[in-house]
């Protein structure tokens, strides 16, 4: 996948301009033959400001999927991440929530606003994953959903009369919840990540991490990292997509030391040292969600929202979507696609379904 090709497509199809979270300093290009000393201030660097203004007007989409066994705190974590009740907690004990017989896909959208920037956040829940006695192929509905979103986008792209801004329902980030057994990954975890790391950005996290002591956490993380490596599972941020040395060193540190993030979620506040903090109150102490000595929630939040949000979208668009598109066009002999959705990757063959 040549970078130049991707850049071209960025101009044509990235109809939503998004501001860079950390604007890189403008490097003046040396035009041929002309002295590089500008005679005065032109104002090219205001492009950053213009992009920011546009983004604030148009807002942007972000789609995050949560996968894991029921009871691992998925909904609570999403609510904590986005500091609002965006995920309907099925943990309200009063209601009779039966475990669904097959994996369901539930997408709920919200618009949240911060500092004048509007984000259309869609949380995709997957109740029923891993809860049955027989969990063979329970990842197939999830893979199918992800591919369906790529198909939708592809169809819009291929239209003669294209929309000004193609609605982006593609899954940008998939948070995979690992159960804190303290032993190792479960076979189901491996199977899921093996299949899905090729189609979507997977961010593995260790759920309900307040059940492990510091040593247990370190050991468990090391073991999980090793297992993922041994099994060839590339979680986000993938090594092969590091753009430059700066990215590489930053991501290496995250990949080899911090991930998978051991998190604790909560939507209740308690008074600690005169401050109101989000936490969990146990008879032996209060676990503070945003305290880095207690858990790594703050690291996860900064990672997903404050530093890598844009990158998650770009990798989804430039890499995963392009892979899907290329396979689709190849299957169709280089022509734009007609009806149908691409079947999942050869690992789990199933008949192609007609989309809509």
């Amino acid at each position: 996948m040549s970078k130049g090709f991707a850049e071209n497509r960025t101009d044509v199809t990235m109809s939503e301009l998004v501001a860079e979270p950390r604007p890189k300093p403008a490097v003046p290009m040396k035009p041929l033959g002309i002295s590089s000393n500008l005679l005065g201030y032109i104002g090219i660097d205001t492009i950053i400001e213009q992009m920011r203004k546009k983004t604030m007007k148009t807002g942007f989409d972000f789609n995050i999927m949560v996968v894991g066994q029921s009871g691992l705190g998925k909904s609570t974590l999403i609510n904590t991440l986005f500091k609002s009740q965006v995920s309907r907690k099925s943990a309200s004990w009063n209601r009779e929530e039966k475990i669904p017989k097959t994996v369901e896909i539930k997408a709920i959208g919200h618009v949240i606003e911060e500092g004048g920037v509007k984000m259309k956040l869609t949380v995709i829940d997957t109740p029923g994953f891993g809860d049955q006695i027989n969990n063979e192929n329970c990842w197939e509905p999830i893979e199918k959903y992800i591919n369906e979103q790529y198909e939708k986008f592809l169809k819009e792209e291929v239209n003669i009369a294209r929309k000004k801004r193609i609605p982006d329902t593609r899954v940008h980030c998939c948070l995979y919840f690992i159960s804190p057994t303290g032993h190792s990954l479960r076979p189901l975890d491996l199977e899921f990540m093996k299949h899905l790391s090729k189609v979507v950005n997977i961010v593995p996290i260790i759920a309900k991490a307040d059940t492990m002591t510091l040593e247990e956490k370190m050991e468990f993380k090391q073991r999980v990292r090793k297992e993922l490596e041994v099994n060839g599972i590339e979680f986000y941020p993938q090594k092969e997509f590091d753009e430059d040395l700066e990215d590489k060193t930053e991501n290496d540190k995250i990949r080899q030391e911090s991930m998978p993030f051991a998190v604790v979620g909560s939507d209740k506040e308690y008074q600690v040292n005169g401050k109101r903090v989000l936490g969990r109150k146990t008879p032996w102490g209060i676990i503070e969600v945003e305290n880095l000595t207690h858990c790594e929630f703050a690291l996860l939040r900064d990672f997903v929202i404050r530093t890598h949000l844009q990158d998650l979208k770009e990798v989804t668009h430039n890499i995963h979507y392009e892979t899907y598109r290329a396979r689709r066009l190849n299957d169709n002999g280089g022509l734009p696609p007609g009806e149908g959705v691409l079947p999942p990757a050869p690992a789990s063959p199933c008949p192609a379904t007609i989309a809509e």
Partner: protein
Amino acid sequence: MDKEYVGFAALPSQLHRKSVKKGFEFTLMVAGESGLGKSTLINSLFLTDLYKDRLIPDASARLSQTLTIERRGVEIEEEGIKVKLTLVDTPGFGDAVDNGDCWMPVVRFIEEQFEQYLRDESGLNRKNIQDSRVHCCLYFISPFGRGLRPLDVAFLRAVHDKVNIVPVIGKADALTPKETQILKQKIREQLEEQEINIYQFPDCDSDEDEDFKKQDAEMKESIPFAVIGSSTVVRDGATRPVRGRLYPWGAAEVENPHHCDFLNLRRMLVQTHLQDLKEVTHDLLYEGYRARCLQSLARPGARERTGRSKLSRQSATEIPLPMLPLADTEKLIREKDEELRRMQEMLEKMQAQMQQSQGEQSDVL
């Protein structure tokens, strides 16, 4: 004249002395998904390190693992009373992607022990019957779920009429007190809904003192027990060192009744209901198995198999029993081993006595 005194009030203490001499046997099974703190809890309960050399397999090794049954034996002695504890473990339970029927090896194992006992009981030489029946099954429920999972329900339904089930919530330090209450309530409701029979604590006699009654009621209220296990000692600030788990935000203490139900579980399992568990296993569960077994043999379909139509308990000669994998010679060897052990113990005791009397003689001289 003195009141008539026959003296059979001394019978209980005679029984006590006899049973102390004989020693106690108890078989405890632990079941549940891996990673719920089973081994740590067993080590905490019996203050032993039964799982010292355990290797935890990684996920790719577990992909093709089937359920195995492991037995570990340990002899615990406290104040002259010996308990021969056998632990039955079920590694691999619920680990695979497809766990259909993964409980069958467990069911078969429990039934095999019943079969063995039935054979022994109906055999000629009944002096050294060894009771390897499972007296209690601690079933670990995950604190991360929302109650019983489909696999939990399937397992419990398969074994509840064959073994005393004591449900336990493992790694209870993952829950706040309120969450614990809600989870316990949910589990109790589900057990009732699914008609699963767990071990019922017998009601205490009306002549027990108030304290005991209160303790008993508390214990019944806290089922399923939410436990924390630990073999490490923590020092939490100014308090004395206790067994627990040290976190950055505090230390969860194993033996603190406000933190978890470990003390209740230990009291129930070891201090008050050990004998009752054995009795229920023998009087209720084993008898149920025996009745089913013999009834099925008495049915016409079984006639071809056994060639017998009449069965009576009194005939100690040939009773047609379901085929057992255990060879007779193995059983004989076991019995002989047991006799040998007893004789060795007697010998040691006599030697000690002789030495003592010799010492006394030399003192006198």
